């Protein structure tokens, strides 16, 4: 198995008295890794710490085998960063901006310009490459942020909420791009998102952060198939008491939609066991359907446990 591209050893980052990351220990393998977590979980903080933009208060970090504290410039030469918020160099058109970023990353001027044109075509901005970036729509700004992160051909990409503010079509296209980069272009990437479908579609591995700590990590396929069967059910009666009963019986349960809950029944039990518990609590099962485990379940399971 290839060496991990990022390793974190008891990393802690504090804003004033508030710990944004606390004792985070994790390994991000090569390939596409999702950094998942609710808003405020510490995803962006972790990326900024890995870039060397924030100094951690505790712990050590290695990116592509290099220590972040000792070799921040060598690391930044080999990584690309797509920030979450709108970011561009003012007063430049797209091709100048992307070429400028390539030069800042050390590419010679002629190569920088050639790469800028190629990458802008790749991200779908070929026709708009002579327009001032400030006139771009939100979706186009997301694409140009990806282009500037890609232009110097990094070995590792950090994508912070790449589909933020995009319409459904743009979002699909962006996810296709991310998936293509990770699976066909040989780049490693860490995709930070709170959107489970985005991570599930593009990544093979996931690290779930919650309240500044790792809630769970592993290959998505492995985490989804954590044993047992999943049922979707809707009940009539005291749902809260029923959920408490299920949990007491070792059945993990969370709500997915308004009144639909997803229950994780151990392998040796089946739907009948759910009916028995419902009957014991005087709750009527109005709907029960077998389902397949999703990343949402993994996420809810991991975050719910904390």
């Amino acid at each position: 198995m290839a060496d991990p591209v990022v390793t974190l050893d008891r990393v802690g980052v504090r804003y004033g008295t508030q710990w944004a990351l606390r004792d985070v220990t994790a390994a991000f393998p090569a390939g596409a890794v999702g950094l998942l977590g609710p808003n405020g979980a510490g995803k962006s903080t972790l990326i900024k710490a890995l870039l060397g933009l924030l100094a951690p208060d505790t712990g050590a970090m290695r990116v592509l085998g290099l220590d972040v504290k000792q070799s921040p410039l060598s690391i930044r030469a080999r990584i690309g960063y797509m920030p979450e918020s709108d970011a561009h160099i003012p007063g430049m058109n797209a091709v100048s901006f992307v070429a400028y970023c390539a030069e800042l990353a050390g590419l010679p001027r002629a190569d920088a310009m050639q790469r800028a044109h190629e990458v802008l075509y790749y991200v779908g901005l070929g026709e708009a490459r002579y327009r001032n970036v400030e006139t771009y729509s939100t979706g186009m700004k997301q694409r140009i942020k990806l282009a500037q992160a890609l232009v110097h051909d990094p070995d590792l990409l950090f994508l912070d909420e790449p589909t933020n503010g995009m319409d459904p079509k743009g979002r699909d296209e962006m996810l296709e791009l991310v998936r293509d980069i990770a699976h066909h272009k040989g780049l490693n990437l860490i995709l930070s998102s709170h959107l489970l479908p985005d991570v599930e579609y593009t990544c093979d591995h996931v690290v779930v952060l919650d309240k500044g700590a790792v809630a769970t990590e592993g290959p998505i396929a492995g985490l989804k198939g954590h044993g047992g069967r999943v049922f979707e059910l809707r009940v009539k009666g005291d749902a809260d008491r029923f959920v408490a009963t299920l949990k007491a019986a070792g059945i993990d349960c969370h709500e997915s939609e308004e009144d639909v809950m997803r229950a994780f029944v151990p392998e040796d039990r089946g739907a009948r066991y759910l009916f028995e518990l419902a009957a014991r609590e005087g709750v009527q099962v109005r709907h029960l359907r077998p389902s397949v485990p999703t990343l949402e379940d993994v996420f809810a399971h991991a975050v719910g446990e904390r």
Partner: protein
Amino acid sequence: MPIHDQGYQRYKGHRGPHGRRWWVIARAGIVERLRERRFLALMLFSWAPFVVRAVQMYVSSNFSQAAFLAPSADTFREFLEQQNFFVFLVTILVGSGLIANDKRANALQIYLSKPLTRVEYLTGKLVTLMVFLVFVTWVPAVLLLVIQMMFSGSTAFILDNLFLFPAITVAAAAQTLLSAFAMLALSSLSKSRRFVAIMYAGVIFFTSAMYQALRQITGSTVWAVVSPEDMLDVISAGTFRTAGPTSVPVPVALLVVALLIGTSVWILERRVRAVEVVT
């Protein structure tokens, strides 16, 4: 399978070493300014005093009736003092947006996620401004010295005033360094270049007015220490070996300028960060 993949390709070319990225920033800043016609007009206009002085030197060298126009060491000090006006305008036009615009567009996180340090970023911005400031101070002043030698056909003037070249260099350096550092520091405090321009003009006019008021009240010129512009005049007078406009000694003026530059560096160190942590 496509014959040639026109999508994303890996880069196999050369990458430059670290430490020279400041020049990429400076070059981009200079080119961007030179694209503006109004700015080019200002730069040309800033050389009008040079043309007047050059004509004056020509006339005094070639017509004995105009010998009274012959330059002295003080001519060069006066020239640099005249250029103060253009230094002010260029500092505002070039410098006010240097960091403020980057902060407005969140460009700092783009810059600092690349393999360059904050020092390189600031050097690039500083050089952008200083190139234009040197172009309106040191370059024309040294050229005047050369022109004086050419028109007079002798090196006697320069040999008699050997201190002139270092004096021009020191006076211009003090002026450009202080203006550039102060403006960069102010530019890092806001996201609006207009606000920065107003702040800079306010600082210059307010400190000068404060000195004048204190001088009127106390009758002492020692209060010039509150006015950076007057401190530069003191340094200039000291380097050109002429009587100072105030009673402030040159070392004190140098100390004040150094303190102001130090304060600017401190502000820049605190304000130029990719991540602003508000606690």
